[in-house]
C-alpha cells in the first residue's frame, strides 16, 4: 500500500511542475520556430518562384526573340511564295522548343496558290523536319481562333495549351502577324511550342520530396507540371482541381500553395505546392527528440529528488536518534551526578568532571558510627559502558559498606559481584578507606588504584599495596592495611584524569605537575579541602589549555583534623554491679563539655541498657568476661563504642516490642534495646576480630 505522505506529494508535485514548465516552454518554442519556418518558407518560395517565373519569362522572351529574328527573312521573301517553305523550316529549325511552324496567309494573298496557302514545317522525333502545305478544303485556317484573333488585332498571341500528335505533346501556339512592305498584314505565323520540358524544369529542384510546381494559364488550365509518373500525382490533381474551384478549399488542407503571376504575356501563373508535414518535418523530429530528452531529464530529476528525499529522511532520522540519545545521555549524566555527594563537611571534599556526558569515574563518602567511609574508582574506558559499570559499582559500594566496615571485605564483595557475568572484560580500579574520625585510624584497601597523596607538612604517598583491579578474577585477595593518621593529615585521592591530563602538545600533566600544585597549596593561606580540589582542577584545565579533556577528572580529599575531641574509656566486668562504675564514668565524661542534662540522661540510659544487654547475654553460663566502653565526642556528635569478647550477639537484630499493648499483655523484657535505639541516632553492630562491636552515636548540636 502506497502511503501518500506529504513529502511524497511534495516530490511528485515538483516533478509535475517541472514537466509542465518544460512543456510550456517547449510548446512556445515550437510555435515560435513554426512561425519562423512559415515566414522563411514564404520568403524562400517567393525567391524560388521569382526565379522560376523569371526562367519561364526568359524562355518565352527567347522564343519570341527567335521568331522576331526570322521575321525579316519571311518579310524579305514574301514576294516568292515558294520560298516561304524554307522560311518556315528555318524558324522551326532555329528554335529547339518549336516543334512546328506555319505561315497562314490571308486568303488570296498569292493568287497563284489559290485562296488559302499555309506552308507548314514540323519537327519529327529524330530531329528531321517535314514540310507540307496544310491548307485545304478540310482545313480552313481562317476559321481558327488564333488566325481570327491576330487578323483582328494584328498583335501577337499565345494560345491556351493543348495536346497534339501521337506523343500527346503539350503544346502552345504563339501567333504573330507578318506585315509586308506595304504595311499590310500578309500572314499569321504560328509556332507550336513544346512546353512539356518546362514541367521537368519546374520540378527538377524542389525543396521537399513531395513538393511540386505548376504552370497554369490564367483560367487554371495546366500548362506544365510534374510528370504523371510521380508517386504523388494524385495530390497534383487534387491541388489543381481545388485551385480551379472544382474541389472545396479544405481538400488542400495540409498544403502550402504559393502563386505568382508572370509579369508578361501570356498571363500565366506559377503555383508552388509544398506539403506542410514535410515543411515541418524537421522541427517535428526535433520536437520529438526534445520530448525524449525532457522525459529523460524529468526521470533523472524524479530519481534525484527521490534519492535526496530518502537521504533527507535518513539524515532526519539520524538526527532525531542523536537528539534522543543526547537527551538520554543528559538524563544519564544527571542520574550519575546525583549519585555523587554534593555537600561536604570540612574534612571531606571531592569533584568529578566527566570527559564526556557520562563518566566511568566515581567517588563517594559517608559517615557511619563516627567513621568516614570513602572510595574512589575508575572504570576502564570512557562513556556509556564505563558509566554503567560505574553505576553498578557505586550502588554495590553503598549497599556493602552499610554493613561492612572492613575495606578488604568491601573490596572482596564488590569484586565478586563485578566479576559475575563480566563478559565484556571491563574492570575498575578502586580504593576504599575507612577513617575513624576520633582516633585517626585509617584502614584501607587498594584494588589497583593510584596511591593517594598524603599531605602533612610535606608531600608523600600512601604506601598502599596495589592489588588487582576489581572485575579481573573473582577470587582476588585484597589486602587490608591500617595506619594512624597524625592530626592535620590530608589524603588526596585522584583518578588518572589528573596526572594524565594532556595539553595540546600531548604532554601529560604528570605527578610533577600535581606535586607542584600541592606544594603551592600547602604554602598558601586557604587550607580548606574545597580550595585544594578547586585549585587542582583549575591547574589541570589551565595546563590542558583548551585541549579536549581526555579522561574523567576525579578527586577526593579527606582530612583528619578533629577539634574539641573528648575521649575516655572504661573496662567493666560482666556483672550488673558494674553499672555503678559505668554511671560514674559517664557522668564524669559528660562533665567535660557542655551538654544539656536531659540529652545526657537519655544517652546515659541508652549506654546503660546496651551494656546491661551485653552483660546479660554475651557471656552465657556464668562465664567471666569483660567489656570495654569508649566515649568519643568532637563537640558535634557523641559516639559510644561497646566491645566485648563474648559469643556473637547482635542486639540490633531483635524485634522491637509492641509499645501499644496493655499492661496485661506487655512482656517484661525487650525494653532495653528499644530505649537505646530511640534515645540514640544510630546503633550498629559488627563482629570484628572475635569481638562484638556496638557503636552508638548521637548528634549533640
Amino acid at each position, binding site marked *: 500500500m502506497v502511503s501518500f505522505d506529504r513529502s511524497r506529494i511534495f516530490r511528485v508535485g515538483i516533478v509535475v511542475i517541472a514537466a509542465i514548465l518544460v512543456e510550456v516552454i517547449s510548446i512556445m518554442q515550437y510555435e515560435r520556430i513554426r512561425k519562423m519556418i512559415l515566414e522563411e518558407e514564404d520568403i524562400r518560395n517567393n525567391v524560388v518562384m521569382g526565379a522560376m517565373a523569371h526562367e519561364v519569362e526568359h524562355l518565352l522572351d527567347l522564343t519570341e526573340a527567335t521568331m522576331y529574328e526570322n521575321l525579316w527573312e519571311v518579310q524579305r521573301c514574301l514576294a516568292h511564295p515558294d520560298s516561304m517553305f524554307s522560311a518556315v523550316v528555318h524558324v522551326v529549325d532555329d528554335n529547339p522548343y518549336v516543334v512546328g511552324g506555319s505561315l497562314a496567309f490571308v486568303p488570296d494573298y498569292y493568287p497563284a496558290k489559290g485562296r488559302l496557302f499555309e506552308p507548314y514545317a514540323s519537327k519529327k522525333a529524330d530531329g528531321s523536319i517535314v514540310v507540307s502545305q496544310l491548307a485545304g478544303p478540310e482545313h480552313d485556317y481562317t476559321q481558327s481562333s488564333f488566325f481570327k484573333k491576330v487578323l483582328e488585332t494584328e498583335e501577337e498571341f499565345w494560345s491556351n495549351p493543348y495536346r497534339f500528335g501521337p506523343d500527346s505533346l503539350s503544346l502552345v501556339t504563339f501567333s504573330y502577324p507578318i506585315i509586308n512592305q506595304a504595311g499590310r498584314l500578309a500572314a499569321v505565323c504560328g509556332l507550336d511550342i513544346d512546353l512539356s520540358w518546362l514541367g521537368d524544369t519546374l520540378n527538377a529542384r524542389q525543396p521537399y520530396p513531395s513538393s511540386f510546381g505548376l504552370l497554369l494559364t490564367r483560367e487554371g488550365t495546366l500548362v506544365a507540371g510534374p510528370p504523371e509518373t510521380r508517386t504523388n500525382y494524385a495530390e497534383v490533381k487534387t491541388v489543381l482541381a481545388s485551385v480551379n474551384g472544382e474541389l472545396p478549399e479544405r481538400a488542400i488542407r495540409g498544403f502550402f500553395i504559393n502563386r505568382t503571376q508572370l509579369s508578361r504575356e501570356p498571363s500565366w501563373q506559377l503555383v508552388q505546392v509544398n506539403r506542410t508535414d514535410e515543411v515541418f518535418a524537421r522541427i517535428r523530429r526535433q520536437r520529438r527528440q526534445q520530448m525524449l530528452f525532457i522525459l529523460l531529464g524529468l526521470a533523472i530529476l524524479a530519481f534525484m529528488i527521490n534519492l535526496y528525499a530518502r537521504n533527507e529522511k535518513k539524515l532526519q532520522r539520524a538526527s532525531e536518534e542523536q537528539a534522543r540519545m543526547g537527551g538520554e545521555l543528559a538524563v544519564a549524566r544527571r542520574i550519575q551526578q546525583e549519585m555523587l555527594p554534593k555537600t561536604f563537611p570540612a574534612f571531606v571534599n571531592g569533584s568529578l568532571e566527566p570527559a564526556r556526558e557520562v563518566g566511568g569515574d566515581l567517588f563517594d563518602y559517608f559517615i557511619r558510627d563516627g567513621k568516614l567511609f570513602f572510595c574512589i574508582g575508575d572504570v576502564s574506558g570512557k562513556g556509556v559502558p564505563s558509566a554503567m559499570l560505574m553505576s553498578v559499582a557505586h550502588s554495590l559500594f553503598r549497599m556493602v559498606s552499610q554493613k561492612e566496615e572492613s575495606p578488604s571485605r568491601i573490596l572482596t564483595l564488590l569484586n565478586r559481584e563485578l566479576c559475575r557475568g563480566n563478559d565484556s572484560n571491563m574492570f575498575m580500579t578502586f580504593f576504599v578507606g575507612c577513617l575513624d574520625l576520633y582516633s585517626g585510624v585509617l584502614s584501607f584497601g587498594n584494588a589497583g588504584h593510584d596511591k593517594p597523596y598524603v599531605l602533612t607538612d610535606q608531600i608523600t604517598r600512601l604506601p598502599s599495596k596495589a592489588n588487582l583491579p576489581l572485575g579481573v578474577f573473582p577470587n582476588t585477595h585484597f589486602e587490608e592495611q591500617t595506619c594512624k593518621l597524625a592530626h592535620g593529615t590530608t589524603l588526596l585521592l585522584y583518578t588518572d584524569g589528573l596526572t594524565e591530563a594532556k595539553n595540546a602538545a600531548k604532554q601529560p600533566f604528570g605527578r610533577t605537575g600535581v606535586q607542584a600544585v600541592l606544594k603551592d597549596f600547602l604554602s598558601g593561606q586557604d587550607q580548606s579541602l574545597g580550595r585544594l580540589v578547586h585549585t587542582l582542577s583549575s591547574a589541570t584545565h589551565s595546563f590542558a589549555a583548551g585541549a579536549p579533556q581526555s579522561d574523567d577528572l576525579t578527586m577526593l580529599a579527606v582530612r583528619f583534623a578533629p577539634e574539641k575531641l573528648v575521649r575516655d574509656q572504661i573496662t567493666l566486668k560482666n556483672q*550488673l554491679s558494674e553499672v*555503678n562504675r559505668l554511671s560514674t564514668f559517664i557522668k564524669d565524661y559528660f562533665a567535660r563539655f557542655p551538654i544539656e*542534662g536531659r540529652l545526657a540522661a537519655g544517652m546515659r*540510659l541508652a549506654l546503660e541498657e546496651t551494656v546491661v544487654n551485653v552483660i546479660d547475654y554475651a557471656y552465657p553460663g556464668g562465664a567471666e568476661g569483660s567489656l570495654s566502653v569508649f566515649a568519643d565526642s568532637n563537640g558535634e556528635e557523641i559516639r559510644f563504642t561497646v566491645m566485648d569478647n563474648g559469643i556473637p550477639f547482635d542486639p540490633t537484630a531483635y524485634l522491637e516490642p509492641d509499645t501499644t499493648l496493655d*499492661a496485661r499483655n*506487655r512482656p517484661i523484657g525487650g525494653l532495653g534495646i528499644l*530505649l537505646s535505639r530511640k534515645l540514640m541516632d544510630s546503633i550498629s553492630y559488627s563482629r570484628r576480630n572475635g569481638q562484638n562491636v556496638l557503636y552508638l552515636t548521637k548528634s549533640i548540636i
Partner: protein
Amino acid sequence: MTTSILETSDQVIAKLSGELDTAAAPLAEQSLQPLADKGKDIVIDCSELEYISSSGLRIFLSILKQAQPFGKQVVLKNVNDVIRDVLEISGFISLFVIE
C-alpha cells in the same frame, strides 16, 4: 536510691529518690513489692526520682499487673522530663495514670 512508703485510708504512696538504674533495681523492687498487697490505689511519687532504666520500668509494670485485677490504679506523680521521655518511648505513659 531511697524509697519511703506512706499509707493512707485509700492510698499507698511510695516516694522514690535518686537514680533507679539497673544496679539499684533489685533493692527497689524488694521495697516496692508490698505495695500491691495492700488492695489500695498506688501512688508513686517521682518528684525526687532523677533517673530510671528499663529495670525500673519493669518494677512499675509488675506493680501495675498486680493492682489491675483488683480494680486499683497506679498513679505516677511529678515525673521529670527525663523520666517522661522514657515513659513515652516505652509506651508506659498510656498504661499509668500520670499526674
